[in-house]
């Protein structure tokens, strides 16, 4: 919450400054996923410091879908995305002649969370998650004991990202089996801070979002280990921790997150400097904000891709792709 208020103040100040200072500083416009926001924001802060304020970077949180929509309308330099670009967006970008360079920036363990006062949940299976979130459960699965016998006969209050969110697309693809298929009777917000606030203040809550938002709120949230029922991916429930994500055992909820750079913007020197800075520092900064850094090699390959201005997505434009392990990212480059 504090962060979003700070962000608001920053935006207001930026607006005032932009009115006064005109185009004194070069502006890089970034928008999109609130999951990727913490990294991009951290990189932007460091970058603006090293550039001594000569280049300004604004980072919005419209959600992956909202971001791509603006991006493909040519309003952005960079789009933050917590899933690869999908068909409808590829088509929109194509129609408007927007080429894009896809760069992976880190790994996220999409996390399932409950309130710290919740003393009955110590792990959850993918099957149970599906039972909670699938469309057929709408209005039917409303109490904890309907999910697992032994859990209390109390209402369950659900919190999750809204339909513009890449996290929503990924989660539904990975858990329910079909991207975008979810029940609708939950508290939905594109702003993860609202979800944090909701789960932190409601003992009956369950929700999901990127692990960085748990990292910032460890005292007020309880992280739930997830069991995918496949012993090849680690036996029993697994937490979205560094080792598990690197080893590929936090499945199916570990996923790469991206930035998409507009090809036209890549010619601008300030954007070029920013992306180079991003690829060099993302490893360090993604750790700092709570995500899992890619191997150094991946950033080098991504940077090469950027320098050669290779457009298109290695995921074929199919949107959320489940079960992509870190080494596969390298192979696909």
């Amino acid at each position, binding site marked *: 919450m504090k962060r979003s208020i700070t962000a608001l103040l920053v935006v207001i100040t930026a607006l005032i400054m932009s009115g006064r200072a005109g185009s004194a500083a070069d502006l890089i416009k970034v928008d999109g996923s609130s999951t990727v926001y913490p990294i991009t924001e951290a990189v932007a802060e460091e970058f603006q410091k090293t550039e001594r304020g000569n280049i300004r970077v604004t980072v919005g949180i419209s959600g992956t879908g909202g971001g791509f929509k603006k991006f493909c309308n040519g309003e952005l330099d960079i789009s933050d995305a917590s899933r690869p670009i999908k068909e409808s967006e590829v088509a929109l970008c194509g129609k408007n002649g927007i080429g894009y360079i896809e760069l992976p920036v880190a790994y996220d363990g999409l996390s399932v969370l409950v309130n710290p006062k919740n003393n009955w949940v110590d792990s959850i299976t993918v099957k149970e998650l599906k039972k909670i979130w699938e469309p057929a459960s709408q209005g039917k699965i409303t109490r904890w004991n309907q999910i697992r016998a032994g859990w209390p006969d109390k209402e369950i209050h659900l919190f999750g990202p809204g339909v513009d969110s890449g996290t929503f697309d990924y989660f539904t693809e990975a858990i329910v089996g079909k991207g975008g298929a979810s029940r609708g009777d939950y*508290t939905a917000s594109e702003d993860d801070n609202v979800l944090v606030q909701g789960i*932190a203040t409601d003992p009956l809550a369950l929700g999901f979002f990127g692990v960085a938002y748990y990292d910032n709120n460890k005292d007020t949230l309880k992280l739930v280990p997830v069991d995918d029922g496949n012993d090849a991916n680690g036996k029993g429930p697994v937490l979205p921790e560094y080792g598990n994500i690197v080893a590929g055992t936090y499945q199916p909820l570990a996923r790469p997150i991206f930035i998409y750079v507009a090809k036209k913007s890549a010619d601008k020197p300030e954007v070029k400097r920013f992306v180079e800075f991003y690829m060099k520092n993302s490893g360090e900064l993604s750790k700092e904000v709570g995500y899992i850094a890619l191997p150094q090699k991946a950033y080098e390959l991504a940077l090469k891709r950027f320098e050669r201005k290779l457009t298109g997505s290695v995921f074929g434009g199919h949107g959320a792709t489940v079960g992509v392990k870190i080494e596969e990212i390298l192979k696909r480059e």
Partner: protein
Amino acid sequence: MRGSIRLKERAIEGALFLSALFSVFITLGIIAVLVFETYGFFKEVSIIDFLTDTQWTPLFSEKHFGILPLFAGTFLTTAIAMLVALPVGLISAIFLSEYAPDGLRAIIKPMLEVLAAVPTVVYGYFALLFVTPLLQNIIPSLSGFNALSPGIVMGIMIIPIVSSLSEDSMHAVPMGLREGAYALGATKLQVAMRVVVPSAFSGIAASFILGISRAVGETMVVAIAAGLQPRLTVNPLVPIETVTAYIVQVSLGDTPAGTLEYRTIFAAGMSLFVVTFALNILSYLLAKRFREVYD
């Protein structure tokens, strides 16, 4: 000379007429857009489903278009707000009009009206970050997002509407009525409750209804603190969503114009408009029916 003055007069009258016409046209324009988009909506969704389905999930794969959960949220928060605003507003109005010395009245009245000048986004965060945690100390089962806390805060916000308008109409009751009652041996309380309040009833009722309309249309407070979760319930302790909060939620997202999802906000807005319009007519009729004319 004379002719030019008359011409000027005409021009001014014309300008005044045009500006009056302007706001009428804007209103008609809004209604036209609402009706047009709502018509498009009801071509695809049956009005029976809209009014009787108990689920509202137009953005998701399992689509339901029942407006009831949203109106349940709106009426729940409005009822809570009015439970706060009506008694407090009316009692402060009676105090200001009948008991407070003029000096005190001149200080308190503007101070009360400052409450109405606080931006509603501030009230929203006040409800979410201050009132809700406070209430959770008393009611441990209260969810972080709920109807109770924004309802109470909305009530506080509406107090000046009720108190200020009621006080105006009480103040307008002629001294002669009060003096007559005193002459018959009435106490101060009897004068206030049996003479002034009934005489000012039309103004008080109008202020109540204006307060209700304000609560029904309030957006920011409920969007921030009530939970954005459409739920058909009268339980004030769990997350809910109001009609206005839903409209905000969709407007903030990237729902493409012209789709059914997009039209839901116009259907919701139209329903809200019908409700507030009915309230306005009710207030007009009440004011007319109970108007006491002194001259």
